[in-house]
């Protein structure tokens, strides 16, 4: 697809044709990539943007005065603008901090904002369906300043159980939940949660690692205060993430990692940190990756996030129906049975077959699924599971991927009898 050209209607086959890795075989079968919740496959436009950067524009950013150094800086800062537009940041690019990924973004939130603003006894309320990235930094902060980490339970329909939320909200300074569960596919009611937090004078943080790639994200409309996500889950490269917060909050946050690039001045008696996002970007950043992220955002913008969401919704409805029909209970999907407010993540529990064995058998069919606890051990414990085999869709996924998944699952079921 040429730059700037818009698709008139969503065409997943075209997305697949744009994705080079989709052309390869695995174990003599065409690749059936069902692990986008782990990492997505970049389209050619993303790979080319990074190659072009290294072939033509590579230099360190914010340092040199020569032409290519300026070009590199423009590419880097241009990505900040692209991100701000993509998530509708009200304060624009000055609110966008580049990190190494969602995990670092949450560490920045906990160790900068959290350490400066939370005191002993203050409560951070997360949920049982959080990824470890939105749990462990809070436990680490608890060790330093004695905050309390509290969990919103997940109900038997795999949704947040908000029946006791008034009691849970007592003493809460920050509510921090995922936009979409990486295990269950559950899409959380972010607008409702934001209102809930703000009514009680708390701030609201969102783990956008999954939702950023599968749903439209509008931080202003949702009225959220912090957003974290990774480029590689949204068709971009690994090693690059985003931390977003409103300008006035960012202005009061102390620096996180120290070093070059994040300072205004360094003397023998101390240092003065830089202002704006730069204050949080110590060391040489991932520059080529920002070129890739800009290309990914352009590409997703061309597809339209509403169209991506609608396409994956169709795939999810189809897969839920067919898995139930084909295996009538022998393959259980750990997540909402109703596709409403549910993304394309299918955590499978195959009766009598361990998830690692499921993934091994599926690999022989070229099917990529992720076995394990998906960095969400509290959630797995909640449902008495050690692991699941997780299949997840992306914009390039087709119902034919579900065909192969079902064929391979059939082999797993029959092999283990």
């Amino acid at each position, binding site marked *: 697809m040429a730059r700037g050209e818009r698709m008139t209607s969503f065409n997943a086959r075209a997305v697949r044709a744009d994705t080079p890795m989709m052309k390869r075989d695995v174990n003599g079968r065409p690749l059936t990539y069902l692990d986008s919740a782990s990492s997505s496959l970049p389209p050619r436009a993303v790979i080319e943007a990074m190659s072009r950067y290294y072939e033509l524009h590579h230099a360190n950013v914010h340092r040199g005065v020569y032409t290519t150094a300026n070009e590199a800086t423009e590419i880097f800062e241009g990505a900040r603008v692209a991100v701000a537009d993509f998530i509708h940041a009200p304060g624009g690019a000055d609110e966008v901090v580049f990190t190494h990924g969602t995990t670092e973004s949450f560490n920045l939130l906990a160790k900068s904002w959290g350490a400066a603003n939370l005191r002993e006894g203050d409560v951070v309320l997360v949920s049982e369906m959080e990824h470890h990235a939105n749990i462990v930094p809070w436990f680490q902060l608890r060790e330093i300043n004695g905050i309390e980490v509290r969990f919103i339970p997940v109900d038997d329909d795999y949704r947040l159980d908000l029946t006791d939320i008034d009691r849970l909200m007592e003493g809460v300074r920050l509510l921090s939940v995922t936009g979409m569960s990486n295990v269950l596919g559950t899409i959380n009611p972010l607008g409702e949660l934001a209102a809930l937090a703000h009514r009680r004078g708390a701030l609201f943080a969102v783990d956008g690692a999954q939702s950023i790639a599968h749903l439209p994200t509008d931080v202003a409309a949702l009225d959220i205060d912090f957003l974290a996500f990774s480029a590689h889950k949204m068709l971009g490269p690994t090693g690059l993430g985003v931390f977003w917060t409103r300008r006035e909050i960012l202005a009061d946050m102390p620096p996180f990692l120290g070093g070059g690039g994040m300072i205004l001045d360094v003397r023998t008696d101390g240092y003065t940190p830089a202002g704006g996002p730069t204050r949080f970007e110590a060391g040489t950043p991932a520059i080529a990756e920002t070129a890739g992220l800009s290309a990914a955002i352009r590409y997703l913008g061309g597809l339209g996030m509403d169209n991506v969401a609608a396409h994956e919704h169709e795939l999810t409805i189809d897969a839920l129906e067919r898995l139930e029909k084909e295996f009538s209970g022998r393959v259980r999907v750990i997540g909402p049975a109703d596709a409403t407010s549910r993304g394309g993540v299918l955590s499978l529990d195959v009766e009598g*077959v*361990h998830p690692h064995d499921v993934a*091994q058998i599926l690999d*022989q069919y070229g099917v990529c699924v992720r076995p*394990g606890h998906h960095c969400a051990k509290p959630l797995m414990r909640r449902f008495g599971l*050690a692991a699941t085999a997780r299949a997840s869709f992306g914009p390039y996924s087709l119902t034919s991927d579900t065909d192969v998944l079902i064929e391979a699952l059939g082999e797993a079921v029959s092999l283990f009898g």
Partner: protein
Amino acid sequence: MSNLDDLYREIILDHYRTPRNRGALDSPPAVRVEGFNPLCGDELVLYLVVDNGVVTDIKMTGHGCSISQASSSLMSVAVKGKNLDEVETVMERFKEMMTLKERSLDENGEAAPLDLRNLGEIAALAGVVKFPVRIKCATLAWKTLAEAVAEAEAEAT
């Protein structure tokens, strides 16, 4: 799917479905050692009784994939009733079987045939080596056994 047949031999599936020597033993007198594969979540608790240099009883609890469960079941059968010298030999032979890099590969990338004599049912695990990410599943029980043997020996002295 011949590759899968190499991995999921009938003996392995049998030991997975019907694991031998499951359960717990009083500790003491049994030595109790835990084993983990943090990446895949396999967990194993091994109970070992060594009396006068002989493994008189062994039991295990825990959970994991078919390879890890079958390997621990096969291991328990292989060492129960054996003296510690024999146990050392079996552990060495198993380790050798799981180590591809020390064996030469032929032109088809196949490992040179390993001497599987006297390995008994444990030989069924030989196919695991073709699936490198699964080797740690097979070795968990054996690493835990090595720890338990060392602990039992330390207690005996």
